């Protein structure tokens, strides 16, 4: 667990409470609630259009819900100003999306170092920290490649390193293997979960693939903008 994670291990680090969000007149979330414990890897599953990505964006402070609460480490983040949420995303959260969204003009090494550079870390130190990830994610020899010169699996591993390099408290991963074949996707998930567990990073993983969700500690299902409780939760209710 990273040194700056002074969270109680049993309480939620991220939580949505009764969250509503619409795109225009189309409701996406209709009272969604979910808790993610510190250090946990949670898979958020559900059919296309169920609201699972919208929930991730609300939890990560990218979208602000119309009503309801988003808590991170005991703070109400939906009440923060955009600049504060932006610095929270930069300093505390990491992101991996379906398509790596690497900056095409930058090398793999610079792409990985980007969150550190944006946080004001000196270039030499940031690149030094980025380099550590090449061995860890089996990217040796690819330091100077630009995104167009990487395979899908390589680009996604670079994106994963970028998501984790700043040792975020929470990594938000939205269909991180969606554009990869089975074997490459499995490789990425292995590396993602191993690295996250090693540094105690909580992971919120949106996926519609059961074999990807099986890497998580538990799963919730989003249906029609609501998070369905697990059968075990219902029994305990």
């Amino acid at each position, binding site marked *: 667990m990273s040194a700056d994670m002074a969270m109680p291990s049993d309480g939620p680090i991220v939580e949505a409470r009764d969250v509503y969000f619409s795109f225009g007149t189309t409701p996406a979330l209709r009272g969604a609630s979910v808790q993610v414990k510190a250090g946990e890897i949670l898979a958020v599953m559900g*059919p296309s259009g169920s609201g699972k990505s919208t929930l991730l964006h609300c939890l990560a402070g990218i979208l602000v819900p119309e009503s309801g609460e988003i808590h991170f480490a005991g703070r109400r983040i939906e009440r923060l100003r955009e600049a504060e949420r932006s610095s929270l995303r930069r300093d505390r959260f990491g992101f991996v999306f379906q398509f790596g969204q690497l900056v095409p003009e930058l090398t793999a090494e610079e792409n990985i170092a980007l969150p550190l550079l944006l946080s004001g870390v000196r270039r030499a130190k940031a690149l030094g920290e980025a380099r550590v990830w090449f061995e860890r994610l089996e990217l040796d020899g690819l330091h100077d490649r630009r995104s167009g010169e990487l395979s899908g699996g390589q680009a996604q591993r670079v994106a994963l390193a970028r998501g984790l390099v700043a040792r975020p408290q929470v990594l938000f991963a939205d269909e991180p293997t969606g554009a990869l074949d089975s074997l490459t996707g499995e490789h990425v998930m292995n590396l993602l979960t191993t690295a996250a567990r090693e540094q105690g990073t909580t992971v919120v993983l949106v996926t519609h693939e*059961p074999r990807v969700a099986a890497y998580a500690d538990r799963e919730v299902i989003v249906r029609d903008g609501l998070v369905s409780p697990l059968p*075990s939760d219902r029994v305990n209710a």
Partner: protein
Amino acid sequence: MSVSLTLLGLLEREPSHGYDLKRDYDTYFGRGKPLPFGQVYSTLARLARDGKVIAGDPEPGAGPERKRYVITEQGATEVETWLAEAVEPEPHLQTVLFAKVVLALMLHRPAAEYLDVQRAAHLQRMRELTDVKRNGQLVDALLADHGLFHLEADLRWIDLTAARLETLAKAVQR
């Protein structure tokens, strides 16, 4: 697939004769493999012996036997327990799941909740197999993969069925 529990489930819907039970079983669950009359009556006799159904007096009419069977409280409890519990996740269990879903809908039970229970059991098994893959040898990983792909196919069926429950209910409810 459990013939006795399926027949018991059909009896919970309404008291029935052996002949009608066979006809309903063949219509909904037989799928090209009709249930032999002998098996219907031997199963009903066993269920009666165990106190799960009560056989009425013989009635006049055609066919080998004309007794009306009624489910008991004990039999209804057994159906309820069976429907609500997850099936051991393993390949080729679709027929059991199928029978459970159709019966649950016929009996106006919460089929979606039963599917959720099954989904959770499947995902738990998939997590176990994924651990085997991560920590075992390549041969273990290959075997685990075989199981994972079958479980995933089941899960897709579960998801699709969950999305179609309303339509399915109309097709099987009277």
